């Protein structure tokens, strides 16, 4: 693999950049692999990457029905934070966040992780108490967050309106090293590294069936033929229910549309990420200058990657109220993704009723931030057949036992 650097660019510039090689290969599938991952989203690619890197398993294929990174990984609003309330979540998201810190260097691909700081506004007394609780919890979990006053909020976000009138800002939960990254680059960076390790990323390859013998997985049917495998990882986000069905089990997961939108780009006016849960909206400014905006999920299940308009309207009301100056900016583009929601709003990283078949799903509205940690934990699970401490609490049987990891407690909007 040719390494990327400013020197490489200068060298290639001499030949008008005709010399760059493919970032990832486009191979035909082999007859079988040691491990097959379904879904080349961020989570699937990261799983493959850490299988190779941490566990030396490199005879791996990643099967993608569309184009890699084209699911929610390429549709999200890229917020990265680990200020979660419950211990298992804080551990997993903080692991992910800390891996993000050095991911560009590790992958030799600039994923533009930008720990520019993240605020969650408190606009009711109830919310104040909730975030104070989160700060106390985070301190014990090794996650660095703090509570800040409205005046400090205003300093960090000059464009914000802290005086209401309906919901004056009472303070905020602040994670200084939360932020954003470039979503496509995360998928591409992992894909390039996987390909470099000799793994096969097979795009336009839809899995249509799962084969097993004696309760053990043996392979998958795909639009490019049958592919045998010793281990199978299902990492397909919004389509988890469908693929689980192929593998013969059901999941406590519902699929819903989550939408986002961007404004036209303007010069920098907001460096931090702001989330406002009482009024239901959040906003950051991308490096391109677009205001990146999101809100809650639609109130019904569906598989179309568009949403209903009233959610956009609700979100914009919240944000125009919170940031009055955005009123004269224009909405450039709105889109949606299908998110996989569990009952406790926490993910599933788990063995399944089918032997050697593992699942990673349920990231819902907030899994971009988790990609490196999730891949790490899932690879560990697939390699050893048993979960390590990061994944231990996230098995799918927790719902049967009532052992929820409920994050809706802390955040109405969980991005």
């Amino acid at each position, binding site marked *: 693999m040719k390494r990327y650097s400013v020197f490489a660019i200068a060298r290639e510039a001499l030949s008008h950049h005709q010399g760059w090689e493919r970032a990832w290969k486009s191979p035909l599938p082999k007859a079988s692999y040691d491990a097959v991952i379904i879904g080349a989203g961020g989570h699937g690619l990261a799983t493959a990457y850490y299988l190779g890197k941490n566990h030396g398993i490199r005879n791996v294929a990643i099967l993608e029905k569309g184009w890699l990174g084209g699911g929610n990984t390429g549709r999200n609003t890229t917020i990265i934070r680990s200020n979660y309330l419950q211990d298992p979540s804080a551990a997993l998201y903080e692991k992910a966040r800390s891996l993000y810190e050095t991911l560009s260097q590790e992958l*030799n691909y*600039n994923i533009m992780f930008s720990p520019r700081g993240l605020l969650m506004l408190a606009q009711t007394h109830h919310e104040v108490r909730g975030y104070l609780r989160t700060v106390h919890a985070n301190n014990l979990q090794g996650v660095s967050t703090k509570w800040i006053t409205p005046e400090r909020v205003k300093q960090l976000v000059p464009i914000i309106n802290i005086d209401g009138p309906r919901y004056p800002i009472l303070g905020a939960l602040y994670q200084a090293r939360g932020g954003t990254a470039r979503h496509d680059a995360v998928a591409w960076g992992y894909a390039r590294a996987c390909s470099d390790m000799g793994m096969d990323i097979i*795009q336009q390859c839809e899995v249509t069936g799962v084969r097993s013998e004696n309760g053990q997985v043996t392979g998958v049917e795909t639009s490019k033929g049958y592919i045998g495998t010793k281990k199978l990882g299902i990492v397909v986000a919004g389509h988890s229910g469908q693929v689980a069905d192929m593998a013969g089990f059901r999941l406590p997961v519902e699929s819903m549309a989550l939408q986002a939108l961007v404004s036209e*780009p*303007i010069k920098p006016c907001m460096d931090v990420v702001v989330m406002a849960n009482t*009024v239901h909206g959040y906003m950051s400014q991308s490096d391109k*200058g677009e205001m990146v905006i999101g809100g809650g999920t639609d109130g019904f299940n569906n598989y179309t990657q568009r949403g209903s308009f009233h959610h956009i309207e609700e979100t914009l009301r919240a944000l125009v109220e919170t940031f009055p100056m955005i*009123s004269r900016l224009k*909405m*450039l583009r709105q889109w949606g993704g299908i998110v996989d929601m569990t009952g406790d709003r926490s993910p599933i990283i788990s063995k399944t009723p089918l032997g050697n078949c593992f699942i990673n799903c349920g990231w819902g509205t907030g899994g971009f931030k988790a990609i490196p940690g999730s891949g790490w934990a899932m690879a560990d699970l697939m390699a050893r057949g048993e979960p390590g401490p990061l994944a231990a609490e996230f098995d799918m049987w927790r719902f049967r036992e009532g052992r929820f990891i409920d994050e809706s407690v802390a955040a109405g909007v969980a991005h």
Partner: protein
Amino acid sequence: MSTRLKSGGRLIDRSAPLDFTFNGKRLRGCAGDTLASALLANDQMLLGRSFKYHRPRGLVASGAEEPNALVNLGQGARLEPNQRTTTTELFDGLEARSQNHWPSLDFDVGVVNNYAARLLPGGFYYKTFIHPRAAWKHFFEPIIRHSAGLGSAPKDRDADRYEQAYAFCDLLIVGGGVAGLQAALVAGRAGARVWLVEQTAHWGGRAPVDGDVVGGMPAADWVEAAVLELSAMDNVTLRLRCMAAGSYDHGYVLLDEKLADHTPGDGRPRHRLWRMRVGKILAATGAIERPLSFAGNDIPGVMLAGAVRDYAVNWAVSPGDRTVVVTNNDDAYRTAIVLKEAGLEVAAVIDARNIANGPLPERARALGIRVETGRAIARVKGGKRVEAVEICQQAGEGAASTTLSCDAVAMSGGWSPVVHLWSHCGGKLIWDESEAMFRPDATRPPLHADGTAMVLCAGAANGALRQAVADADAQVKIALQALGFEAESEEVPAHDVADESALEPVWIMPQGAGIALRSKMWLDFQNDVKVSDVQLAAREGYESVEHTKRYTTLGMATDQGKLSNINGLAVLADSLNAQIPQVGTTTFRPPYTPVPLGALAGEARGEIFQPLRKTPMHDWHQQNGAYFEPVGHWRRPYCFQRPGETPEQAVHREVKNTREALGLLDASTLGKIIVKGPDAGRFLDMLYTGVMSTLPIGKCRYGLMCNEQGFLSDDGVVARIDADTWLCHTTSGGADRIHAWMEDWLQCEWWDWQVFTANVTEQYAQVAVVGPNARKLLESLGGMDVSKEALPFMHWADGTLGGFACRVYRISFSGELSYEIAVPASQGAAFWALLHKAGAAFGAMPYGTEALHVMRAEKGFIMIGDETDGTIIPQDLGLDWAISKKKPDYLGKRGQERSFLANPDRWKLVGFETLDGSVIEDGAYIPEHGVNANNQRRVQGRVTSTYHSPTLGRGIAMGLLRQGPARMGEVVEFTRMDGGVTPARVVDPVFFDKDGEKQNV
């Protein structure tokens, strides 16, 4: 130079001059101008800078597809960044400033990026700025952020208002060109409810510009007659300046109507957002011209041929004195002819095709215009303005044979139908080889709720580039038939346009251009994406069109690829040795052109951001020092501050006064839901953990509700009103949620149970009269008997007090002698006033929500949302007594039996007393020794409510502790934000009047 012609201009009124400024320079245009035409008329070709390389940018187009000529419009509270000059109608006093440069438009330091362009190919960001690690955040990213972005960030609150409205119609026709007008005529005559909307300020679209003849008359006359006829139809609504932004499932359409953009500050709302449900959409949205890719095609002065024609015909503006037209089709000859006929010089028409002998080229030749076939532009010369073009063979590699000096280039690569509304909701496209364009595939339309086509396209939007009227006529008839209307059989007006011979797809010019030329061919003008960038992306494996788009940013500019997408696709397909339709398009997403966020938010701002629910006593509170807090949509007094008091002091006073004398609480927000019917008792037994069916008439009972998982979701007192009626009190925040929850079960699961529910929260005002003097006050009012015997604790009775008909509940959330009195909402304010007047003698004071919280905590009463957070079961809170052991089932019962919830090690409710009397911090945890497998500090409990108790004079708290009730007397440590700890003793959660003597008097 570009200038105003001496005569002509369909749309301008030369007798009405308008003054405006550009970058502070005073300029003059006239009524009917767009900002773009007025700037061109003043020879202002350089209008902005590109995104990445900060290259000089001028106008390319004349409509919504313009990628370059965006300005900061207006100032202060009316500053609007990225405003398209092409869609901005000129008005007197308009102020515009160019964007994305420093220090000035003419001299922009950012242009260094241009000289380093070779180091900054598509996707270079991903390959560099990797080391050192901290440099991205602290150095590279800030630089990139500052050089990116386009317009200035507004600073002020928007001075304008935005309106929203709903509408319905059978047929929404989008686009007021001849196709849209013909469709509207047919549909209008057939009696359908029709809306016809046009995004610009004028009807007619391209036909009048192109000199088409419709129905035997010049298009402009036909348009006028059509509009006249349509205006007279009651069933037809016509809207100019109204853009259909998006189509959504089930015939939902969003329209953005500009009301006062051209008359700012006239008091009208600036935009009106229409939300429409329609039977069908007919998209007669026309087509957009494609640029050609030749080296230097981004230099100011290179424009679309159709736009050049628009400027000349509509606004009498010539973009240059000497224009070169470059094309792969006949249509662009119209531009050459228009310019020539306006007395301007056309240096040559450079036609990439080997043969050009249709009527239009012949006419051009007849006018003496030099036509060069089989030729191409090798490169455009010039910096901030076109100076010349070098001509070469299209079939070659770009060796220039001639240089033609010129100051404008009009290019045309063919036209692409505007299919956005078709595609937003899933309509599919097919590739049309002959016109080299994607057009709607009528066999795969977006579907309506009934499974039929929701959108039809008509005219150029449907790929009928030349027979628009006839196509529109046919399409609208299909739509009408599907809608159940019968179209009158009338003759379709003839639409005469010059014959055109076939276009020849030309995706790069010349065909064999080497890399040096390809690195100068712009695809996306605003985002600086060139042919070489797309080819690089393909070479590096970013093969999917979405990958290419994202890697290079092609089509991600503010025009969303209106000009660049098809050209980029073609280059990509070529690089991959694939066919264009195989590569496919990127997804079309709403809106068609950007819509102000303010318009989407509408009037929901400031005080009316969300509906504000007020109790009948709200005004009184406001006049009496209430310090409000939001509780759902309600606003409740947190406390009533007296002059000189802090909120904290006020709360202490209110608690003390209530405990010692008399407090009055406005409890009107408390949820009140009537549940009635033969099955109401059975229903409530399922809803609550306790038994409600056996509650005697006249009595009250405290109840808990859980969700299916078993977690506690709400609590409140239930009163049995008569044999089949119960009144359920819920928490203030929970009323709507619980009512919906009840209906969910009744409508979806137990639909055969005979139960009605009604949320009567707002029908009653409710006052809690609390404290040792409560009974004295009520007795002084006269009316019903409120004695201990007549109205014991946990009973209710109807009667009158002080002349007010009321219902009195003897319930207590404070531990004091307490009556909650409900009166009709209309009487609330008067009753409240009476209580204060009569109560003065008994020391009555109002108290707010915080005093309420403190008093309930002193009594160890739980509060939903404090002691609960969605993970707590009643058993955790020691509320086993409120759970019926006898009932076979209730919502949450099975959930609570699951192993994790039945675990004896769960954290349980206890009280805490700090050793030093201080107050435990909100949200504090109780850590224990050691760390877990993830290296997190182990914890064994946390605080749920913590207050200073004025009654006891020290900090008290409730909280959850592992096996808490078994650990009374133990001292535990709570975390503090400063890193220290607060030691506290585990005690009973009831701190005050354990035996309940005070409330039972």
